[in-house]
């Protein structure tokens, strides 16, 4: 292996960087499946349940090599998963309590075993074992890097090979089962890869922070995409970035905590800024929608107020418009409409332009078509449909409107059109005597 001398010559800090990057990448990938399957906290459980295995492996084998301890950790981790499955299947205890019970009892057993290990008679030195609790990247050996790289390669291979299968099990297990996929085996395989990654990561970042490495990059990636392969790549990238960056920024602090806080800040930034799912984008979209709805209501109101005098387009007094319904920020909306060329306004009057009239007629048509649909097909009383139509009219696609129109016309229920707008099925406020 030509890379070997190169690796051997690495300084400790570069080894730590490479190791944490490898771990972050792997944790990101398995974390995606865990988060999507609703098992985000299984990583936490596994990390705790590994402790008795680590202590037992040390007691039985007397060795502190990462491989021996990891095998022990894997054994109790898998036992913990099996115990949870048995509890959930056979008893009244629900899954959350089962996870809590197994997590804490196994950890308690681990604490007991560790205190046995500590006794002078057994050999005394549990230094390497403590890192399983709190993590200690500074202890990383070149051999550990190879273990990490190997696990990473196997994981990459498995995910690439079974991508389609994992995907379908993640998103629709019942469908996968009905298609004849071995869902149980695939599920176990996902759990097993989660277990392996958790356990090789334990001595590097420690128990709690390993749980964070599983959840954070995956939850971060979820903000940015709705596609699994992109989510996997992003999660791996966030994980890879968080490892070395955290170690570098957090010099002098516990490395595990620093890595987790770095990953958490990625999460925080994505939470705020991600397109579509981020908080800022969602607030923005909500604001835009509200604005569009108010503008559409404005045009429709103007149409309804002008309707009786069509085809002449009347100048409406501002007061009539502002009293016609409740408005948030009417002034601003009027200004926007004036800029869009749909209305002409003077100090005290508003008049639809021909272009605005057409827009307003279309909107009113959509509203009334939906009202008529509700009255005739959903049997809703005419005086109740206005509000319902208000909610939905802004979201009706063009094709649905055409369909509604055709259907109503076919059954000869489309009344004579005034500028192609059917008359309202209920009484309008304009019909009432104005005060």
């Amino acid at each position, binding site marked *: 292996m030509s890379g070997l001398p190169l690796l051997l010559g690495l300084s400790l800090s570069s080894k730590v960087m490479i190791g944490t990057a490898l771990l972050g990448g792997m944790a990101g990938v398995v974390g995606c499946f865990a*988060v999507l399957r*609703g*098992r*985000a*906290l299984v*990583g*936490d459980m596994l990390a*705790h349940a590994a402790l008795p295995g680590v202590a037992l492996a040390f007691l039985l084998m007397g060795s502190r090599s990462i491989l021996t301890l990891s095998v022990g950790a894997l054994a109790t981790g898998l036992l913990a998963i099996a115990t949870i499955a048995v*509890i959930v299947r*056979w*008893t*009244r*205890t*629900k899954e*959350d*309590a089962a*996870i*809590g*019970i197994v*997590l*804490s*009892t196994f*950890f*308690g*057993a*681990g*604490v*007991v*075993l*560790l*205190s*046995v290990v500590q*006794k002078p008679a057994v050999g005394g030195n549990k230094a390497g074992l*403590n890192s399983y*609790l*709190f993590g200690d990247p500074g202890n990383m050996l070149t051999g550990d890097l190879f273990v990490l790289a190997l696990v990473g390669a196997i994981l990459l291979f498995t995910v690439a090979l079974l991508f389609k299968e994992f995907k379908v099990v993640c998103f629709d297990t019942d469908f996968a089962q009905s298609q004849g996929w071995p869902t149980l085996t695939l599920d176990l395989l996902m759990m097993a890869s989660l277990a392996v990654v958790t356990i090789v990561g334990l001595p590097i970042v420690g*128990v*709690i*922070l390993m*749980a*964070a490495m599983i*959840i*954070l990059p*995956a*939850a971060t990636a979820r*903000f940015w995409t709705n596609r699994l392969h992109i989510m996997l790549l992003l999660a791996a990238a966030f994980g890879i970035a968080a490892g070395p960056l955290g170690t570098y920024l957090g010099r*002098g*602090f*516990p490395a*595990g*905590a*620093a890595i*987790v*806080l770095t990953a*958490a800040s990625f*999460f925080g930034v994505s*939470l705020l800024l991600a397109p579509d*799912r981020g*908080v800022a984008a*969602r607030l923005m979209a909500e604001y835009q929608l509200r604005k569009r709805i108010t503008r559409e209501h404005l045009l429709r109101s103007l149409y309804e107020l002008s309707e009786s005098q069509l085809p002449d387009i009347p100048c409406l007094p501002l007061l009539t418009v502002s009293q016609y319904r409740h408005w948030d920020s009417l002034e601003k909306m009027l200004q926007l409409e004036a800029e869009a060329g749909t209305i002409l306004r003077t100090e005290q009057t508003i008049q639809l332009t021909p272009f605005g009239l057409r827009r307003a007629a279309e909107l009113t048509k959509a509203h009334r078509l939906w009202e008529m649909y509700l009255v005739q097909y959903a049997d809703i009383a005419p005086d109740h449909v206005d509000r319902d139509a208000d909610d939905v009219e802004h979201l009706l696609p063009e094709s649905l409107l055409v369909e509604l129109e055709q259907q109503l016309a076919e059954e000869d229920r489309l009344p004579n059109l005034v500028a192609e707008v059917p008359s309202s099925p209920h009484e309008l406020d304009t019909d009432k005597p104005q005060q």
Partner: protein
Amino acid sequence: MQLPVTLATLSPDAWIVLTGAATNVACALVGCFLVLRRMSLMGDALSHAVLPGLVLAFLFSGSLGIVSLFLGAAAVGLLSTFLTQTLHQYARVPSDASMGVVFTSLFACGVILIKKYINGLHFDIACVYEGSLELVPFTDSLAGLPRPLFTTLVVLIVNLALVLAFWKELKLSSFDANLATTMGYPSAALHYLLMTMVAVTTVASFEAVGSILVVAMLIVPAATAHLLCDRLAVMIAISAGVGIAASVLGYWAAVYCDTNIAGMMTVASGVLYGLAVLFSPRYGICSTLLRNLSMSIRVLREDLLSMLYRIEELDASKSLTAAKARAALDSSWLARWAIAALARTGRIQRVGDRLQLTDAGRDDARQLVRSHRLWETYLVEHLGMPLDHVHEPAHRIEHYIDDRIRQELEENLETTEQDPHGREIPD
């Protein structure tokens, strides 16, 4: 407050067991609600998330005074509950993932704060995980009690008072949150109240048992009690009892093996849970298996009786060998058992290798066959099922038809002389 001399001069052992038991009972009071609300993992999350709150409280007040600790814990407990809820509701992060994100990040903050400001002082990170119950008798005393015990007792009393004060509200919102909301109870406020109680209880137990083992004390006795009863008040009482038992047993085992006491108490409550899983009278695996087994044997017994009756009815000279009966029942060792039980209770007798009904057995069998044929008649008369479809359901339900249902069937059927296949319905 001056305590009786006998209490003040208790041995260290007794202090440790008392502290363990008090912690367990305080935890059980809130733990039952966590388990019932399926929020057990909030216990785990909060016990980690309060760490930065503790550190900040320590930094601001300069001491580990009870009041500042509790304020810090309550504040961070509320904050993390709020963050978890908000991430879930507004950012659509799955609820378990949002819990994981919040508590791990807060815990990491806590670790950094400890390292930066109070390195080496009162905070030993190992203690955060494992606690140091062994040291309880040697801590400074408050009101004649070791400090951790005093803290825990205060929390125990507060928890008890809160649970009693909000008993109705907590109970209703735990079992049916939607109903509670529609009836005008503030479910969200109760949720925050409970989470604050969990956070404060966790902090009180920190010094003695550590953050993970307190999760065991919150959840395991409550889950054990949940397997043993169906009433909330009983559940809380049992979980307190299980908690006390676990601390006594755990202490005894830890001294016997000379290991970590808090860890051993956890293992002890895990063992108690395991025993409840196996042997709970109503929900245990063993009792369920036993119930199923005795049901299968009863069904086999009754099937055999009615089989023998039908053979007699068809041709009185014919009878069944034991081997053929076993083959027909299609379940060898259970069938053997069923045949032996019937012979022992005098329902059948063996004549050579053949099985014959005794008079008592014939009476039982007549009732079974009567139930079967009445049911077939019912299915045809009232539900209009085709003739070739009625045997199977009747065969399954005949074991559950008692005198009352038989009588009801007789009253509601037009013909009780013949079944739809034309066979006589025996009396």
